[in-house]
């Protein structure tokens, strides 16, 4: 090993060139002369297309070149000697340019020596700074093809026309490939350099083929059909055509056939060689299979989405994976995923037979492939795979011994990876444990929708069954849903209650809810709480009741202590904390909810402080259990009261309607006043703004204020008993703005943050006068969604709505590309144990991760209130002692 040169760390350059006929012959294992493949016994014919010198694909045979078996032998090239040269389609562009730039008689590039020297100097200069010489070379071609008289031999240059796909005409007469090749051969080396080619690696005449490399059989394997018949690869078919025509050509020429026939055959040979390289060249009909299917030749193998690059190298299909539609199942734990039986019967997990599991594995094998926890394959220690069938399953169950391997079907408790595209962050792929369920969709707890960004309007997700013990352990420790509740993005939980979970607990814990023992057990049933604390009090009839806060406390861990403002907090100037008159300050002591209402700030995804505290203070397992219990409790709670929303919930009293109209009328007047002062040139421009900008801004501001005011009026008439208000206030869904738009006034429609101005000259629609600056002429919608929009309002609303759609479409593609570039740039940086961030060479990028060395996941919503909390908890402990 001593004389093996060390592997260079960085590739400094890659060289591309043309292959010379000499090189083709040198690398060829054998010339190919017969178009036949196999003889009558099914053995490859010598010097045929399947010659064993080109490598072997049939098991049992050995390669005559490297004596390797099928699988070991990489394959070797052969070659076909073409009777007459043909053009290589891939180089048509350069051939055409070169023909025009070189002399038809003496083959020199049609530039005088001074010009050539000038371009050479420029070329070396460009190369030195490492730029691409393409533009410069194109200029060389342009200059050279302008010259009409050769500066060396005074020959007049004729017009060269290129005709698709591979024909060159000089003043209407066809140039044969032989002639082109002769011309190129005579171009001196120094002239070749001027057109940017390297004469050692790419002589132009090599673009005209005289000998064709034959790809190894491993590149074009033949397949044996069930009937025993061999079916050859498309490339082999094409090569057969080439050899046949080549032979006929030779016979005809030797027999002295008329020029016309020779030319026809030459053209045919050209056609076959062309389609061998690329079967989608325009100007010729694609070569077809007998069935009429176009052949898939070399360039078709590489090009496009299914091609080698995009289809086989950048992306591949994976085994042990499944994909189907997702649907919700609130009865599953967040750590589980429901897998349909048909999928569980196909995906398998390999289990090695040991004394501990042999009996269980026998049961699986006896179940066969059809009864669910069964086995699909058995592997002998020598690697032979045996499929479990209804016929052999008893046999196999008898036969298995220690160290055999059984591929057992997926069953409850198996660890799998679950993924939804686009996989934008690490929470897009998490590990779940399997729960096999009937029907055909993947089921998941709706609380894990936020990290996947999933909903159930037809989303599909992928699942991967893990195949090794190591991967299962790694996934379980690092990728389980419960380990990913806290997001490294902001140090808070990304999993929590959504929609009805929040409304449900809000309804349960607000006010003094009186809940009977029966109801209490009903609500708590799914959360597996079997005992109730002492009742809060007794009613008039002496029957005990419990409060919603008590019920919620049953699912809290006993050691939990915290206090924080709820989502409904109205941000008073001085917070009274525990004494909050709105019950908007949550106090939890020793796992008992004493004060406050539970809403988004307590248990919501992204915001929930309770999950965060439980996970950081106790464990992620406790966090997962809390989310499981909390979601189930919330669903029972919301079902007890019921929560529905209808058009009547948007009703507002008549006097409110009048008030709203008054506000809108006043705003309208204010706008008219502004316009008047603008037209009278009395308006003062705002600093740094033109007069036109000023009036627009003032109008926008006035109308915006008016809309907010109408919202407040509507809001004041809809109390906390309104379900839309409940949802908006608690953070479950929707906002007060949505409510305003439904009940009071939709407001200004905008395009690019400005009032709508486009349309006709000076006006937006023919309904308005040109130059009208009024609110309704520029997209202010006075109506509410409930009252209905008038036609012009409706139109403006559509304009604004469309902008929103276009924006989202553009934003997703742009941010996707931005993220891709960032990921590509940062993907191999690594945080080391000394907290430095380094690249693969060990070069330091940051001396301390994030400059403070803090793991964002463990920070408290990235806010520095940990210290206060610690002090408080220590003091509490001391006070207790």
């Amino acid at each position, binding site marked *: 090993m001593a004389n093996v040169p060390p592997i260079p760390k960085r590739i400094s350059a890659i060289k591309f060139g043309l292959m010379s006929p000499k090189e083709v012959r040198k690398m060829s294992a054998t010339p190919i002369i017969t178009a036949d493949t196999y003889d009558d016994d099914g053995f490859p014919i010598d010097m045929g297309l399947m010659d064993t010198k080109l490598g072997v694909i049939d098991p049992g045979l050995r390669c005559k070149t490297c004596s390797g078996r099928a699988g070991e032998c990489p394959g070797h090239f052969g070659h076909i000697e073409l009777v007459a040269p043909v053009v290589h389609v891939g180089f048509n562009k350069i051939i055409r340019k070169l023909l025009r730039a070189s002399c038809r008689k003496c083959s020199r590039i049609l530039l005088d020596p001074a010009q050539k020297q000038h371009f050479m100097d420029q070329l070396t200069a460009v190369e030195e700074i490492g730029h691409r010489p393409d533009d410069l070379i194109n200029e060389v071609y342009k200059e050279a093809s302008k010259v009409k008289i050769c500066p060396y031999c005074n020959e007049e240059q004729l017009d060269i026309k290129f005709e698709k796909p591979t024909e060159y005409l000089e003043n209407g007469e066809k140039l044969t490939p032989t002639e082109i090749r002769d011309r190129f051969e005579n171009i001196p080396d120094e002239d070749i350099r001027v057109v940017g080619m390297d004469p050692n690696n790419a002589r132009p005449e090599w673009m005209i083929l005289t000998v064709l490399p034959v790809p190894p059989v491993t590149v074009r394997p033949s397949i044996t059909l069930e009937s025993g018949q061999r079916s050859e690869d498309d490339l082999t078919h094409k090569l057969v055509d080439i050899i046949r025509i080549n032979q006929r050509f030779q016979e005809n020429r030797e027999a002295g056939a008329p020029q016309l026939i020779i030319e026809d055959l030459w053209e045919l040979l050209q056609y076959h060689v062309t389609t061998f390289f690329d079967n989608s060249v325009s100007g010729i009909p694609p070569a077809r299979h007998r069935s009429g299917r176009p052949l898939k030749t070399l360039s078709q193998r590489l090009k496009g989405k299914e091609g080698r690059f995009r289809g086989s190298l950048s992306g591949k299909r994976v085994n042990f994976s499944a994909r189907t539609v997702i649907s919700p199942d609130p009865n599953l734990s967040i750590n589980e995923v429901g897998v349909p039986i048909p999928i569980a019967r196909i995906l398998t997990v390999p289990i090695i037979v040991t004394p501990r599991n042999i009996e269980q594995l026998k049961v699986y094998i006896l179940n066969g492939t059809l009864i669910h926890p069964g086995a699909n394959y058995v592997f002998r220690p020598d690697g032979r795979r045996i499929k479990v069938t209804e016929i052999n399953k008893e046999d196999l169950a008898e036969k298995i011994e220690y160290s055999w391997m059984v591929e057992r079907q997926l069953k409850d408790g198996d660890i799998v990876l679950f993924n939804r595209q686009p996989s934008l962050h690490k929470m897009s792929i998490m590990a779940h444990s399997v729960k096999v369920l009937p029907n055909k969709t993947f089921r998941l707890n709706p609380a894990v929708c936020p990290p996947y960004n999933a909903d159930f309007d037809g989303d599909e997700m992928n699942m991967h069954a893990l195949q090794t013990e190591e991967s299962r352990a790694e996934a379980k420790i690092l990728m389980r849903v419960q380990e990913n509740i806290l997001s490294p993005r902001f140090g808070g939980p990304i999993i929590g209650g959504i929609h009805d979970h929040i409304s449900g607990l809000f309804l349960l814990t607000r006010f003094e809810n009186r809940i009977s023992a029966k109801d209490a057990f009903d609500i708590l049933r799914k959360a597996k709480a079997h005992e109730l604390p002492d009742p809060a009090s007794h009613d008039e009839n002496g029957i005990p009741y419990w409060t919603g806060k008590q019920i919620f406390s049953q699912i809290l861990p006993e050691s939990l202590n915290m206090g924080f403002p709820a989502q409904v907090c109205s941000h008073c100037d001085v917070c009274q904390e525990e004494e909050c008159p709105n019950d908007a300050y949550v106090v939890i002591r020793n796992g008992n909810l004493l004060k406050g209402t539970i809403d988004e700030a307590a248990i919501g995804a992204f915001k929930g402080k309770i999950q965060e505290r439980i996970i950081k203070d106790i464990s992620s397992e406790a966090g997962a259990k809390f989310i499981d219990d909390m979601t189930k409790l919330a669903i029972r709670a919301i079902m007890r009261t019921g929560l529905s929303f209808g058009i009547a919930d948007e009703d507002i009293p008549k006097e409110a309607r009048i008030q709203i109209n008054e506000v809108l009328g006043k705003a309208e007047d204010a706008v008219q006043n502004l316009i008047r002062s603008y037209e009278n040139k009395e308006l003062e421009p705002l600093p740094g703004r033109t007069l036109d900008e000023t009036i627009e801004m003032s109008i926008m501001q006035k109308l915006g204020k008016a809309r907010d005011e109408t919202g407040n009026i509507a809001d004041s008439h809809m109390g906390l008993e309104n379900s839309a208000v409940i949802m908006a206030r608690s953070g479950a869904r929707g906002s007060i703005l949505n409510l305003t738009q439904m009940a009071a006034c939709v407001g200004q429609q905008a395009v690019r943050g400005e009032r709508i101005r486009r349309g006709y000259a000076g006006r937006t629609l023919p309904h308005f006068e040109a130059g009208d600056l009024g609110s309704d002429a520029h997209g202010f919608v006075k109506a509410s969604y409930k009252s209905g929009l008038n036609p012009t309002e409706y139109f403006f609303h559509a304009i604004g709505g469309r902008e929103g759609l276009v924006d989202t479409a553009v934003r997703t593609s742009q941010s996707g590309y931005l993220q891709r570039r960032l990921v590509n740039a940062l993907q191999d940086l690594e945080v080391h144990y000394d907290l*430095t961030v380094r690249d693969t060479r060990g070069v330091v*990028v940051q001396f301390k991760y994030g400059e*403070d060395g803090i793991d964002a996941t463990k920070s408290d919503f990235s806010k520095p209130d940990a210290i206060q909390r610690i002090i408080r908890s220590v003091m509490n402990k001391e006070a207790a002692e």
Partner: protein
Amino acid sequence: MTKFSLLDHELVPKHEIMSEGELKSVLSKYSIEKEQLPKIKVHDPVIKEIGATVGEVVKIAKKSHTAGEADYYRLVIE
């Protein structure tokens, strides 16, 4: 015209040339070679200002959103 010092600008953090001993302790702290440090060009205005030469290492006390102030070390290169 008065010549302003680049270093007086509030957006330019403090740069200083490190002594041999200081450098040694930093390199051993991170157990790296000098070449594994981040780089800065000699043409960089701030390098011209403090007069560092190729091969020297400058210590930069950078303002940081997360840590208040963070020390960076850069090797001066061609």
